[in-house]
């Protein structure tokens, strides 16, 4: 009897709360689900910067951080959908199935899944950024600035996103300097400053004088600063961490897209789509160029940036061969999005094997 009383009391409270929310708040509420802590100064941090832009545009937002890519994600999503959120952004690849599953149960809530490809219900959209365009620019700079012709690359996990980055970077570097060698070290972590620093140190000790990274912390650029070599910032502008080492950074800029999508919900114009934006749409931003770069290189980089933005230049323009010499992209053609999305082979010129 007691239990029944408590239960009905609680459920009426919940009902009352929901009704109040429905009655009072006409404005759109957005929720964000994060894989890491907002304090990682990397992937999640940049998504949270985007969330703050939504807040600044006058919408209410909530976020849940450190959500595992498991059944927990479903629970969190249901809770958010149940508590009056109109649009929910799920910001990691592993949320793909939970997002689609929960979206089916809440047809009136919009779901936006980052870096995935499944849109099983009309209320699920996907979005991602063409970071490889940024890496084309980094490769061009690295190939020009290196003196030892050895470029170090600290990689995280062997997934298409990372392989695509390595390929794009190496192709661009080879274009300006056919003698370069890209040495890759897999750290098998997205962020562990200690490990990342050790990986960078190993590459520097082996003669690399430019270090690129596909992990999230600032430890690598700091190590480069200490050792007197060049590096590039990842996800956010890391110049202040290593003013001498950092030549430029590739920033993830989610804010404009988030504001757009939340506004679309408010106006009733939201519809399902797949977005893959690059430099042209401002989702990938190149930070200021360091003054240590010669002025002709700066001019070249600015032009390349403009050409990538306009679509005049594509990061993967043929002829492109894989490591065994098989043709991947024919001369005059560019790699299509399907090929890019599933890229799991190195291009010619990258050393070593992809870990399996």
């Amino acid at each position, binding site marked *: 009897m007691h239990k029944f009383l408590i239960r009905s009391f609680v459920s009426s409270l919940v009902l009352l709360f929901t009704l109040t929310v429905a009655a009072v708040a006409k404005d759109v509420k957005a929720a964000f689900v994060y894989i*890491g802590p907002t*304090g990682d*100064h990397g992937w999640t*941090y940049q998504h949270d910067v985007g969330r703050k832009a939504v807040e600044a545009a006058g919408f209410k937002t909530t976020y849940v951080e450190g959500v595992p890519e498991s059944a927990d994600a479903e629970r969190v999503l249901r809770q958010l959908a149940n508590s009056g959120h109109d649009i929910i952004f799920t910001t990691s690849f592993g949320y793909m199935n939970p997002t689609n599953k929960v979206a089916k149960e809440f047809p009136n809530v919009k779901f936006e899944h980052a870096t995935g490809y499944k849109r099983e219900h009309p209320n699920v959209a996907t979005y991602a950024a063409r970071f490889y365009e940024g890496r084309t620019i980094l490769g061009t700079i690295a190939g020009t600035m290196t003196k030892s012709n050895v470029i170090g690359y600290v990689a995280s996990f062997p997934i298409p996103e990372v392989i695509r980055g390595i390929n794009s970077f190496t192709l661009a570097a080879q274009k300006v300097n056919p003698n370069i060698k890209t040495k890759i070290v897999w750290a*098998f972590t997205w962020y562990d*400053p*200690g490990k990342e620093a050790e990986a960078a140190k*190993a590459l520097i000790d082996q003669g690399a004088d430019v270090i690129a990274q596909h992990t999230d912390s600032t430890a690598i650029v*700091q190590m480069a600063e200490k050792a007197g070599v060049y590096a590039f910032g990842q996800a956010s502008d890391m110049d202040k961490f290593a003013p001498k080492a950092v030549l430029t950074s590739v920033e993830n800029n989610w804010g404009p897209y988030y504001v757009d999508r939340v506004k679309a919900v408010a106006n009733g114009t939201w519809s399902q789509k797949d977005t893959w934006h690059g430099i042209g749409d401002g989702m990938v931003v190149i930070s200021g160029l360091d003054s240590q770069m010669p002025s002709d290189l700066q001019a070249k980089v600015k032009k390349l940036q403009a050409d990538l933005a306009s679509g005049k230049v594509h990061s993967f323009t043929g002829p492109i061969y894989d490591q065994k010499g098989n043709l991947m992209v024919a001369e005059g053609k560019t790699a299509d999005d399907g090929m890019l999305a599933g890229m799991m082979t190195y291009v010619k010129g990258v050393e070593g094997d992809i870990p399996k």
Partner: protein
Amino acid sequence: MIVDINFVGLIIASIMASAVPLILASCGELITERSGVLNLGVEGMMIIGAISGFALMTVTGSLIIAVFGAMLAGVLISTIFAFLTQTLITNHVATGLALTIFGIGISAMIGKNFVGIPGKEFPVLFEGLKDTIPLLSPILFGHSIVFYFAFALPFITSYFLKKTKIGLIVRAVGDSPESASNQGINVRFVRYACILYGGAMCGLAGAYLSMIYTPQWIENMTGGRGWIALALVVFSTWNPIKILIGAMIFGGLTIIQFHMQAIGVRIPVQFLTALPYIVTIIVLVVISRDSRKIRLSTPSSLGKSFHKDN
């Protein structure tokens, strides 16, 4: 490949630098465990040290205040553990685990405002001598004061436990708190002191990470090193010199596997990544295989609460 002798020196220096936080935390925990207290909160105390050191450095601008502040923060958080386990006689394991969870949570909370701020440069000693002796120069010179302290600590700890009266008291308390108590030793006081000392060393280990090794603050930056430090204490059979060996092996294999990858050695990367953990365990098992010796060197009352009835 021709091996340049200075290159070997550079690798050894990197290995030593990566072993520093493990040595500091393990040597601190060793003293705590020698007094019969099992504190599983090493990771939590380290992360508290990391954020406290970084925050104090940013706010006050003084490296000295920051380093000692980090140690003090380690002491403060271990006081909670000491009060719970020694005064309120709670279970050591549960309290230690709670301490780690608490430490990770509260450090993230304090750290919110310190994300994305670059650290300050920490001064190094003997930098002028860096190119004087081949092979040895990069190993011996150009490191922070904490680095030198860490490599002296196992020897100091060993001397303290074996040769000093206070060291003997600590061991007596860990082996038989009843007898020690009957001899008029204040068991609770000794254990409090050892717990707080362990906290200070873990705080210093954390500060090394956030101020010297990778000068920045991000959440969870200790990355499980506290747990490795705990394992090193057990595998070293509570012998500080073996902690030094274990920490060097662990740090060494992490760095050597990165070098092997960069050279292009065709061994599966996943195997190389797991190697430090596997080899550290194997080596420490081998060097501590003598079961009679293990029984003799394990503090007999480890993890057991002592309650003086009167």
